[in-house]
């Protein structure tokens, strides 16, 4: 099916970012598709000082800790709000999208870690390496991340009494996938990571030689006095890794069921790039698969994608803590609480995002953001006026274009025109325009990606 350039740019921004309003779409369209990919991938060249100033302002205006007994645990609500603000405000959307991907990949949860400052530390590490050019080196940094060490109990992995949690998930969920190692490999690599722990008072990574098991180990066929870095090196020599990672990123960016040949092609690109996630993601976004019918609208928006894209489409950009925390709570009811994935596997995504309960939460969230009671700054009526749209038909077409790039069936549009009818007075128009935006955002077409 032929799609307009604007529809393909919108597809790109939904997948490689969090959507956008009309002027965002126009700005990326002016670059052409390849230029838009280039701008998204090479985000270091884009100035995002405004977002950083917003974050600094939020830190200045809110308490650094919410825990009197343990002030070092920081302020979880503030950290969640700051991250959501970044997603709303960023001019480097792919960096923020990959940070979210990594949060669901190298998972940790504040429910176990307890300490919001350590969770932020991990978040900053992922943002800094969002499109790393050396995934192996990055994995070694993750293996030293205090939140991760606590979350997967490696902080208590000691010689003579190993804890296998981190060692197992490192292979099963983070790098190789199940079936590419044995139970004995789990036990042996746990020994290699003994003594990799966290200093209780400072929350810093430390290697404690006295707790480390220095006896020989055999891991994935290699025998020696192996330590954690050796284990990571051996893991990345396994051919299973490049396919594992290519499949995971294809499923995140393109479609849920990439075939083996496609996976192999991208695994090869990734291997030849020296494990550069940046190059892998760039090639995925430029690929015919990404632009195919099979990919287009084949995914279901995550709660973060739904919530942030709805707010971005209506140009809401706020540092207001109350508004941001309210939105994050709605996201939690939709099944995605930032900093608290359901388990070490992250969010399973796709069809698991949608059921009766989460559907209603999405629809009711859309209703709340267009409602005049809300102290947010979203006002669809002003948006329509600013765009010079005044008749019912102009308004319907304007929001269809902004929210779904007019890519809906004719009877979808006619149902909306029927709903709006005529504007009998300003108050009537106000209610109907809000109702119109609520309906589009509640419709199935707005839940897909």
């Amino acid at each position, binding site marked *: 099916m032929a799609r307009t350039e604007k529809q393909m740019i919108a597809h790109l921004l939904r997948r490689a970012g969090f959507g956008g309003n009309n002027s965002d779409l126009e700005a990326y369209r002016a670059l052409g598709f390849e230029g838009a990919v280039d701008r998204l991938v090479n985000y270091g060249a884009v100035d995002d000082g405004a977002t950083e100033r917003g974050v600094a302002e939020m830190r200045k205006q809110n308490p650094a800790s919410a825990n009197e007994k343990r002030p070092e645990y920081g302020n979880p609500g503030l950290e969640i709000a700051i991250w959501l603000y970044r997603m709303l405000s960023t001019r480097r959307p792919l960096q923020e999208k990959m940070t979210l991907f990594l949060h669901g990949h190298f998972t940790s949860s504040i429910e176990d870690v307890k300490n919001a400052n350590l969770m932020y530390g991990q978040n900053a590490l992922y943002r800094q390496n969002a499109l790393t050019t050396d995934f192996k080196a990055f994995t070694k940094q993750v293996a030293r991340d205090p939140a991760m060490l606590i979350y997967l*109990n490696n902080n208590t992995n000691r010689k003579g009494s190993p804890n296998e949690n981190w060692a197992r998930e490192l292979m099963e969920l983070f790098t190789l996938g*199940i079936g590419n190692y044995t139970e004995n490999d789990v036990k042996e690599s746990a020994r290699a990571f003994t003594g990799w722990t966290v200093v209780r008072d400072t929350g810093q990574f430390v290697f404690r030689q006295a707790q480390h098991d220095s006896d020989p180990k055999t891991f994935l066929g290699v025998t020696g006095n192996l330590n954690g870095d050796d284990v990571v090196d051996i893991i990345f020599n396994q051919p299973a890794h490049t396919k594992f990672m290519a499949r995971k990123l294809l499923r995140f960016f393109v479609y849920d069921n990439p075939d083996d040949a496609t996976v192999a092609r991208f695994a090869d690109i990734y291997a030849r790039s020296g494990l550069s996630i940046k190059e892998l993601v760039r090639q995925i976004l430029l690929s015919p698969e990404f632009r195919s019918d099979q990919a287009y609208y084949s995914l*279901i928006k995550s709660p973060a994608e739904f919530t942030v894209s709805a707010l971005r489409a209506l140009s809401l950009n706020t540092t207001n803590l109350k508004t941001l925390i309210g939105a994050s709570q709605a996201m939690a009811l939709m099944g995605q609480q930032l900093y608290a994935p359901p388990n070490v596997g992250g969010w399973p995504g796709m069809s*698991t995002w949608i059921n009766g*309960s989460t559907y209603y939460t999405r629809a009711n969230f859309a209703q709340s953001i267009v409602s005049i009671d809300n102290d947010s700054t979203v006002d669809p009526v002003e948006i329509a006026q600013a765009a010079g749209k005044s008749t019912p038909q102009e308004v319907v077409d304007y929001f269809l274009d902004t929210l779904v790039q007019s890519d809906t069936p004719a009877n979808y549009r006619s149902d909306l025109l029927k709903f709006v009818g005529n504007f009998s007075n300003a108050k009537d128009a106000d209610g109907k325009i809000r109702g119109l935006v609520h309906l589009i955002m509640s419709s199935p077409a707005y839940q897909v990606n």
Partner: protein
Amino acid sequence: MSITRRDLVKNGLSIAALGLVAPSFLVKSAYAVSGGGRHRESGAGLLTGGQGDALKKNILVVVQLSGGNDGLGTVVPYTDPTYFSSRPTIAPKPDEILKLTGSVGLHPAMKGFKGLYDNGHMAIMQGVGYPNPNRSHFRSMEIWQTARPDVKEPTGWLGRYLDDDDDDEENTLRAINIGNFVPRTLWTETTLVPSITNVESYQFRTDGRFLGDPSAQIDTIHHLCEHAEHGPAEEYVSAAAIDAFASSDLLKTAVGRYQTSVQYGNNPFAEGLKLIAQVIAADLGTRIFYISLGGFDTHSTQAARHGELLTMLDEGVSTFYNDLEKMGKADQVAMMSFSEFGRRVHENGSAGTDHGTSLPMFLIGGNIKGGIYGNNPDLTTLDQGDLRMQTDFRSVYASVIRHWLGADPSKVLDGSFSDIQFTLAKTG
């Protein structure tokens, strides 16, 4: 020509294969297109004659304990010295263990379970697992949820039960999950099981101040849901929304009518059980409920955490049972608990336990034949530090399907499994 659900499946509309569940609205619209008139295939039902009919009102509540519950710390072999020597820091104190028999007792937090056991309402199946145990949370949970240890299977065991049971098929509330994610157990080929966390928010909110007629908004969203033309993902959302519209008024009425003198706890698990009680009280024809309690992955400082979780489990389940008794429905409901695996016999260096294998399952209900089924775990003959299984979990499922749901297990499970007669004679 009328199109049947099975035709749709046969024609490749089985979206389960794509990792999605087939939208039931497709089935419904197919009926509408064909001019109504529901076609029922004869002889396709699972009910096994008179026995099945007597069980058609039975309700199953599945309690999933996520993360791998420590079976040995739940049902404790308190006379086995190996137990205490393997668990030097995390074993419950011997004098606090709630003794059930001369050799097994419950964790001290499980006072309500002890009462249910003493009254003969609780069966404990010892040592339940499957061959070649997998110690990955995800694969092992998938195995318990799909009941297919050897192959990757998109549908769940209760999903297949729902697919094969034609009885009351049009009821969108035949099965209900409590929570934000529909577990694999309830993935079906043809229907979408609703997931509910809170009845108040389980409805389409409109803004009546601006439009004289909120029903215009409701009508319009119904229509928009029918114009889902971007493929399976959008159709799936559409199906979920349409099913939700159909069930939310029913649920709201049910909850509005419910009154109880029982006081549920103030946590999501207890609130979920209360919601289940509300729906059971309203007789909406729901036969399967599913609820989860997570956090059992106790790799470190197990004693405190496990105690808290078991307290929540114990208080929630015993309060719920009490409520069922008061409404005269305790005999109609069976609860079944499971977890993806138990934990290793020896505690680790973090005062916790790593991933293990088999563990006990609980079956609770007024018509359950109470007692301990199977032997105490053998803590000395281990396989890679883990317990050997006694009973295949599919035996328990098969027996629940046969003796409780009144259906033929061979339609749901792959192969035949030994039968456990755990119900009282009056229910078959």
